[in-house]
């Protein structure tokens, strides 16, 4: 098992290198030079050229990307921001906790609401509760997050004054952002739990459990839910990615200094080296989450665990399982 984890951690490296290459290449071939934007519209060509030289943007593609990797490996830095001149890693480190706090709370919240609701809807299939929660899940899944943010802001901050409008001064100011980020994951978790439970509940082994005379509670919790957990875990893992994505809009609207906020402002300021750092950190979190969910699979399902410990075929099989879920 430990060998499997180590192997997976090593496999993250080429993925992250790939991410850097992809993002770097996209930014390199961008139509607007960052130097021109930084110097402003009044700048002369000489000034822009001088700025480009200062930032190292005049060098060829391979030299630039080579330097970037060299700095990561030898100095452990992601370069300095074009605009603020501070190390990108420091900027991210000071902002990441806010994003993680919101993302984590939102994920926990969505699991705490989505899973019980999904189970309830599946157990009472075709009841009014099932219809109502499914309808609500579909509806909330369709609300654009920025509209939701504005709506919550208007209602709870501007009209009712229950929570601050923006910023991160007190714990109350986190409530509205967390709710806005959590809504979409709640809907997804609920729908996934419901369908996974319905899938598991009509399996033969659930009938066996009933034939044993076990109380319905045991049948649902020990026999059905345990087998429905894999897709539920998958969706919880995916929720982390959704909260990261969602953080961009939510942090911008609620004015929270987090990763998403930094990302958005760096893009609009053409501070590409910062953008690149943000994407790299986000990709790291995503791949790490994928690894974590794969490991949780092994805890839940002995069949998957045995594939991991067998080693060789492990990667392929877990892909297959996930692919099946996606389809």
């Amino acid at each position, binding site marked *: 098992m430990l060998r499997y984890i180590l192997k997976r951690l090593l496999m993250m490296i*080429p*993925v*992250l290198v*790939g*991410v850097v290459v*992809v*993002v770097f290449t*996209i*930014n390199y*071939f*961008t*139509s*607007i030079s960052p130097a021109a934007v930084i110097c402003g519209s009044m700048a002369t060509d000489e000034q822009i050229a001088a700025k480009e030289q200062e930032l190292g943007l005049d060098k060829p593609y391979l030299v630039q990307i080579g330097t970037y990797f060299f700095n990561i490996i030898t100095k452990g830095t992601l370069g300095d921001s074009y605009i603020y001149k501070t190390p990108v890693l420091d900027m991210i480190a000071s902002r990441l906790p806010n994003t993680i706090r919101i993302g984590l709370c939102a994920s926990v919240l969505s699991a705490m609401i989505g899973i019980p609701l999904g189970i309830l809807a599946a157990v009472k299939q075709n009841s009014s509760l099932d219809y109502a929660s499914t309808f609500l899940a*579909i*509806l909330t*899944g*369709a*609300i*654009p*997050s*920025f*509209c939701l943010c*504005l*709506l919550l*802001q*208007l209602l709870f901050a*501007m009209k009712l004054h229950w929570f601050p409008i923006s910023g991160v001064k007190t714990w109350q100011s986190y409530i509205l952002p967390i709710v806005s980020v959590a809504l979409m994951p709640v809907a997804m978790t609920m729908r996934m739990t*419901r*369908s996974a439970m*319905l899938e598991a509940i009509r399996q033969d082994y659930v009938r066996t459990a009933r034939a044993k005379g076990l109380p319905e509670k045991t049948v649902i919790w020990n026999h059905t839910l345990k087998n429905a957990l894999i897709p539920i875990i998958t969706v919880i893992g995916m929720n982390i*990615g959704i909260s*990261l*994505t*969602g953080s*961009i*809009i939510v942090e*911008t*609207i609620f004015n929270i200094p987090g990763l998403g906020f930094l*990302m*958005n402002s760096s*893009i*609009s300021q*053409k501070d590409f080296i910062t*953008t690149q750092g*943000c*994407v790299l950190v*986000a*990709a790291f979190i*995503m*791949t790490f989450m*994928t690894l974590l969910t794969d490991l949780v699979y092994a805890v839940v399902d002995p069949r998957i665990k045995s594939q991991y410990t067998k080693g060789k075929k492990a990667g392929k099989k877990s*892909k*297959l399982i996930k*692919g*099946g879920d*996606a*389809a």
Partner: protein
Amino acid sequence: MTQVSTRKISVQSEFVPQKKRQSQFQLKAHRFARNKAAVIALCFIVLLVFCAIFADYISPYDYAAQDLANKLQFPSWRHPFGTDNFGRDILSRIMRGGRISLLVSACAVSISAVAAVIIGSIAGFYGGTVDNVIMRVTDIFMSIPGMLFAMTVSAALGTGIMKTAIALGVCSIAPLVRQIRSSILLLKDQEFIEASKAFGVSNAKIIMKHIIPNTLAPLIVQISLRLGDTIMAISGLSFLGLGIQPPTPEWGNMVSAGKEYLTTFWPMVLFPGLSIMLSMLSFNLLGDGLRDALDPRMKR
């Protein structure tokens, strides 16, 4: 599996003469029609497309005509959705904005679908090293959160209709490749494919008769769901000032413009927001309905 189930149905109908034999298509259409939510969603989408195409002829006002004397008007008979901060009719702008949203969404989804079908089929059919390389590359793309990726590409390409479409299209290739590859791999192992091979049916015929019809169903479902997601993503990008720029009306940038007036004037946020929500909802419901109709074993 679909093949197997239809076979069963046809066997039954031989023994039940009073039941009319139905073609595959009729059967699926019938199943789809029973799903009321999906039918309503389809009607709404048709209406949306109609409005988008004929926006210039049926919209009550010119979408760009400013009337500063009548700005920020609440809904009335003259302006059913009210007017915005420049006195422009919101209904007309939403109709026009729908055209942009649908156009960009359709372009983006076509780009990703075509690319994904080609790449995904290559990965699924050839397997081995080719498959491995393609899968590792999708790993890379899928480890970047979708919206971040779309923003980066969109920032690099610049704003505008075609550029936004390309940015969003490129971003959703990787997950679609996965989908197509896995449905092809699943099919490759199916017994009816092996049976056809054993009967000596040519590869080309197997692809035409079995692989394409059976991968098409999940693809159509995916396309429907993606259309909705992309509409949402466009509006998100535009809201952040990256996608479609004002003065071109787009639902996301309309909300963005309206947020300044949120406390006193809600129609500028509400109506474009509702439009996004309803179209997203319709495409989702349509996708679910299509999935149930085309592939009954996936019914949830």
